[in-house]
């Protein structure tokens, strides 16, 4: 049922947003890389257009514009900007394609930058690593006479900012042909800047940070659908499919949380329904009473959670205990047994954007599941699948063009589509996977995976 926001309620929004920001400042500025109020005051305030306002539909270019953002969710959609980026792919114009192969090679080295083997990302990092490892083992087992084996050079990141930069230099010193990694957006960003200088290609299979590929460095391909795809899908589900318009966001107060919800927050604002509150919680927080008290003032009908299951599971449970009946939505990390365990009965009805249906029964997926289970004794999930696919893409490129970093770059950056165990991939002008994702609903004690509905109000930006 569509709930129309009445004028008096609209007038409350600025106050509620201010209150949420104040609360975020009061409770959240304690983490390692805290958020700050912006000291720069010259930024433009994007106008909130009424729902259904017209758009400039035509965007020239070779690829779907900016993550295939739906027309109605484009920023300033009724204005032609002075300059649009990523309409064509940025080439690497430096030399190197004709360099001779390194002499005396006994293996083809691939770097793997993983999260620390402790902390919140350790488990996901290990799953991704196993996917990478399986792909390399299979490629080595299938190599033909005369072909060199692949060798994995593994390094674990540390929580210290800049650690990944040093590791990226280590990879260059080890003469890796390319490297894979990692989950943390900041670490991947830092490594990518080094990769630009060392001219070493990165395949990213696990970082959802939308800003990763916004730095215009043509040395990275990401097969992991990022938080733009999740955010756009959630915006459509909440506003267009369910007609919910009083939206509150509860998210982790860290860089992934800040960057992760941004596409969603922007999308619903552009649909005419700005988020009423964006409330932060700290990693490790266990009680959310203050946040929930503030949140209830907004009388939300939809609450979007972004964070790890250890917190979001408790948030869900405590929201229901506090009598909040709003529908709960979230990002992929809700689709996790820990979330279900901690949320308890509150998990029922939760909807989350997700990557692909892991209960698919096509032979490609089932074959991968079987091989992975045989090798590692557990069922694979999406981190393993994207790690496997990304590595397969890279290894195929190396086999095709040989041990030359520049030709590997060209082979990787010429990929438009790929069919992997995770499913169909389609890459845009920044080499991000923009293939449609799915969503998951927890009903009757089980996650159900459903295809994304078509955009309701307008067509997608480009086909």
């Amino acid at each position: 049922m569509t709930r129309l926001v009445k004028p008096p309620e609209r007038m409350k929004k600025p106050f509620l947003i201010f209150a949420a920001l104040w609360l975020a400042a009061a409770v959240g500025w304690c983490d390692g890389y805290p958020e700050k109020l912006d000291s720069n005051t010259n930024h433009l305030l994007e106008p909130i257009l009424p729902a259904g306002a017209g758009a400039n539909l035509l965007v020239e270019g070779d690829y779907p514009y900016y993550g295939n953002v739906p027309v109605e969710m484009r920023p300033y959609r009724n204005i032609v900007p002075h300059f649009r980026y990523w309409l064509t792919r940025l080439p690497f114009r430096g030399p190197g394609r004709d360099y001779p192969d390194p002499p005396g090679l006994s293996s083809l080295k691939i770097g793997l930058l993983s999260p620390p083997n402790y902390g919140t990302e350790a488990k996901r990092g290990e799953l991704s690593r196993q996917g990478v490892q399986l792909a390399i083992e299979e490629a080595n087992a299938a190599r033909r006479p005369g072909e060199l084996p692949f060798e994995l050079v593994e390094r674990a990141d540390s929580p210290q900012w800049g650690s990944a930069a040093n590791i990226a230099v280590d990879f260059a010193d080890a003469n890796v042909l390319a490297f894979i990694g990692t989950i943390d957006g900041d670490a991947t960003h830092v490594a990518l800047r080094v990769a630009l200088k060392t001219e070493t290609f990165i395949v990213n299979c696990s970082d959802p940070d939308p800003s990763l590929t916004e730095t215009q460095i043509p040395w990275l391909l990401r097969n992991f659908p990022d938080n733009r795809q999740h955010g756009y899908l959630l915006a459509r589900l909440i506003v267009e499919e369910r007609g919910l318009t009083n939206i509150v966001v509860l998210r982790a107060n860290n860089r992934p949380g800040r960057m992760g919800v941004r596409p969603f927050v922007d999308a619903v604002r552009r649909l005419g329904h700005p988020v009423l509150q964006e409330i932060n919680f700290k990693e490790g927080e266990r009680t959310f009473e203050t946040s929930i008290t503030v949140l209830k003032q907004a009388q939300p009908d939809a609450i979007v959670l972004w964070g790890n299951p250890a917190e979001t599971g408790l948030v869900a449970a405590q929201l229901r205990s506090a009598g909040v009946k709003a529908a709960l939505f979230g990002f992929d990390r809700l689709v996790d047994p820990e979330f279900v365990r901690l949320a308890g009965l509150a998990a029922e009805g939760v909807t989350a954007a997700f990557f692909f249906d892991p209960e698919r029964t096509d032979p490609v997926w089932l074959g991968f599941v079987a091989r992975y289970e045989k090798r590692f004794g557990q069922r694979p999930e999406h981190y393993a699948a994207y790690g496997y696919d990304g590595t397969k893409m890279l290894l195929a490129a190396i086999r095709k063009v040989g041990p030359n970093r520049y030709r590997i770059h060209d082979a990787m950056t010429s990929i438009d589509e790929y069919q992997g165990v995770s499913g169909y991939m389609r890459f845009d002008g920044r080499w991000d996977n923009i293939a449609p994702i799915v969503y998951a609903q927890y009903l009757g004690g089980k996650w159900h995976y459903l295809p994304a509905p078509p955009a309701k109000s307008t067509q997608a930006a480009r086909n």
Partner: protein
Amino acid sequence: MLGLQLAGGPRVRSAETAGPDLPFPLIERFETYGAAEGLPGHKIQCVTRASDGRLWVGTYEGAAVRENGRFHLISTNAGLSHRMVMCLVEDPRRGDLWLGTMRGLNRYSAGRITTYTQTDSGLPNNVIYGLAIMNDSLWVATAAGLGMLELKTGSWKIYDHNNTVMHEPWVYAVKSAGDRLFVGVWGGGILEFEPANGIFKEHRDPDRDMHFDLTPDDGPVSDVTSWIAWDAGILWQSTYFGLSRYDGSRWRTWQEKKSPLPSNFVNFVWARGPVAWVGTDRGLAVTDGSIWANYRTTDQGTGMLEIAAPGRPVENRRMTTALPNNFIHGIWVDDHEAWLATADGLAHAFLAAPRTAGKAGDAKTNPATPSFGRN
């Protein structure tokens, strides 16, 4: 000299022919240096001429100093902390040369190298992108913050997200500008820092979206800064999204196709008076913001000069010599010569004398800069 008219194409002349009055000297010819001339590698990252006249070159395979027409190698065997030399700066008061590498900072003093790393000094991170000297302090742009070394005392101070307005501590360029510093922050635009007062000011892209630039000339063209330069009161910002200039009150921005800037991918900018020397992945651009002289090497290896001035047709001139590569990492310029660090060799550019009353280094005597037509 005879001009050549290509069928259906732009007018092409030899580089020596007269053209419009220019506020900067044109390059007459290039000479190229590589491994055959004693450089340790062909990928050149940075270059600077010290006050004693020696030329310092940072390559991907070590540093080199040119004395008496010969390059002398300074490698990891000599104590350099890493082979990839990213940046160079001279401390004119002491005569020391500082080298930033991919793994640590190095001071070259009287033939000896002293190294500084994040584990044995106050260096914020081993990956060093930029260096600047301000009086008796060395400023180091690293992948994890801005470091400041007091050269008199040897003490360090780190500037990062904890004690500045920068949101995240990735710093990629630093430039001293009289009583202040400009700091290029990845995703954070430019920080203007007055050390005497401890004041930080942010310069950010107003539209805040990376996938478009909403309006021109409204601020930095992007928050992702690749390099900064400053001279004569004018700040230049290079980015991979175009070029920006700030004169203290007004911003100007340039992007490829919307202006004569040859590419949005700008690695480096050097300021000389009111003129910027711009290193892109499609050659060298020299501009005062109004008139442009763009140098590139064609696929056939021919040097080409393109001159663009408001109200005039673009003029193309063929050169007798060419850049060794169009991918330019670093630049050093004075009134007579320019040195260009390219991805395939070091170029020495010989400059013709400027033909107008304006001269480099004197912003006031240069002609006004009419705005370039937007299309």
